[in-house]
């Protein structure tokens, strides 16, 4: 299905402008009562100015949008599009259209979209970009950071524009339909599989441990413990430590405590001469 076919030239211009503005949406820092309220409103300005003619209507629309708002960058452009389509509806139908529903749709979409967005952008896309980038950077290649940025940002920029269009064209029933068709489940599972595979790769590449303990039996050469550990299972300690951290975090232990724990464990191991 082509998503741009029913849009006028002015509407396309408006959607492009909103998508461009969305790159600076998260710039504001106005405390926990607002989060990115001004950012969202900033992105909505083209739509508000287009659909509402009187100052009174504009004031009402602006007041509606300067409420607490937060969502994953790029994924949130779907909300921008949907909300813009609802504002259009509101401007056409006037008082027949309950403006509460705009706020309701906006707030109810933030949570699920952040969930999907965080998983996709930070859990998958960034992990793949970072695992490739880290490998190259470690060898001292400038391609490390460059590839990292390209792999992450090319899909991100594309989706920013695409999702604004999708949201605007399909309106507020869209998300419901996707959920009901079951497509979302398949997508989430695929994304998690790829993510976990890359996590395993990252763990093996980046978590490092080496013990210097050597047992001397009789008069022979001392036997290094690390050799035995490697024969048993290569990278056993890093794997166990990572899974252990995961277990603790899952039990809702604060991440800073886990970090501190590793810090103290390492120093103790250093002091007693294990490493």
């Amino acid at each position, binding site marked *: 299905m082509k998503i741009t076919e029913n849009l006028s030239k002015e509407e396309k211009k408006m959607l492009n402008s909103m998508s461009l503005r969305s790159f600076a*949406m*998260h710039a*504001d*820092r*106005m*405390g*926990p009562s607002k989060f990115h*309220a*001004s950012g969202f409103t900033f992105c909505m*300005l083209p739509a508000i100015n287009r659909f509402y003619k009187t100052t009174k209507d504009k*004031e009402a629309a*602006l*007041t509606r949008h*300067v409420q607490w708002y937060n969502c994953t*960058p790029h994924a949130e452009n779907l909300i921008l599009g949907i909300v813009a389509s609802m504002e259009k509806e509101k401007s056409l139908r006037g008082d027949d259209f309950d403006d509460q529903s705009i706020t309701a749709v906006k707030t109810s979409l933030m949570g699920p979209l952040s969930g999907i967005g965080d*998983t996709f952008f*930070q*859990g998958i896309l960034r*992990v*793949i*970009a*970072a*695992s490739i*980038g880290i490998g190259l*950077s*470690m060898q001292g290649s400038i391609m*490390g*950071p460059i590839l*990292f940025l390209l792999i*992450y940002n090319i899909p991100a920029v594309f989706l920013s524009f695409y999702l604004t269009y999708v949201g605007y064209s399909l309106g507020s029933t869209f998300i419901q339909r996707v959920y009901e068709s*079951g497509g979302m489940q*398949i997508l989430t*599972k*695929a994304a998690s*599989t*790829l*993510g*976990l*595979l*890359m996590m*395993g*790769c*990252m*763990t*093996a*590449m*980046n978590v490092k*441990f080496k013990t210097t303990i050597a047992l001397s039996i009789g008069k022979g050469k001392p036997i290094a413990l690390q050799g035995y550990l490697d024969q048993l299972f*290569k*990278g056993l300690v890093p794997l166990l430590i990572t899974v252990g*951290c*995961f277990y603790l975090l*899952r039990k809702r232990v604060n991440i*800073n405590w*886990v*970090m501190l724990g*590793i*810090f103290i464990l390492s120093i*103790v191991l*250093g002091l007693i001469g294990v490493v």
Partner: protein
Amino acid sequence: MLKAALIAMLVMLLCYAGSYLTGNSYIDRPIVIGAVTGLFLGNLKLGLTIGATLEAVFMGALNVGGVISSEPAIATVLAVTFAVTTNISQKAAVTLTIPIGVLAAFVLLALKNGVMIIFAPILDKFAATNNQKGLIFIHFLSWFIYYGIYAVMTFIGVYAGSSAISSLVKFIPQNLMAGLNTAGGLLPAVGFATLMKILWANKLAVFYLLGFVLTIYLNLPAVAIACIGIAIVVVMAFRDKDILDLKKKKSTMATKVNSNLDQKQQEEEDFFA
């Protein structure tokens, strides 16, 4: 040292503040900001390797849902600056600056939840009076103030901290240093664990093991593993879609059969009536 401090401040403004004007493009992630700091300080290679190391450590410092656990950017800039300008080893620089990242996150949190709230009522007022220029102005003003403070903090950190850190490192005994190096090697585990928490499903856990084994025994590069992963995922997704379609078909068939039966019964009843 003044020059290094100024460079660190500039990098913070350019990358850290800049990332929020470019759609959270991750130019503030350690792997990028480390390289940029290294480039400006004249030691790109050191910047690249420290950046890559810290990227792994701070893999999980994602600020998911607005919760800030650590500040990777400032830790990376300080680590690279200290490693280039003082004589401390790369590993020591990395390990010493990790707590700075956590500490910085607390300052940031106080700033975010305390000082910056003065903008909230102004925003409401501008919205109620349709003052769009004002709204745009404070949107970017709050950005400028917040990240400005951060850049100045980095400047002070480098200017005052360098000599303190290098003299501190001289006094650290060998054993403790080995411990610190081990910590640097193990800390990435926390980052990966955070991400695994998001991705985890018991049925999919074997793929984590697969990724680990492919890397540690076969030494495959990440690109190769990503490609293998994509192949697996595509096959799996198509199979899942087939199963879903079958299920749907089955349920529609079932309702059809049921309605057929109902009809037949109805006819029989009509016949006997």
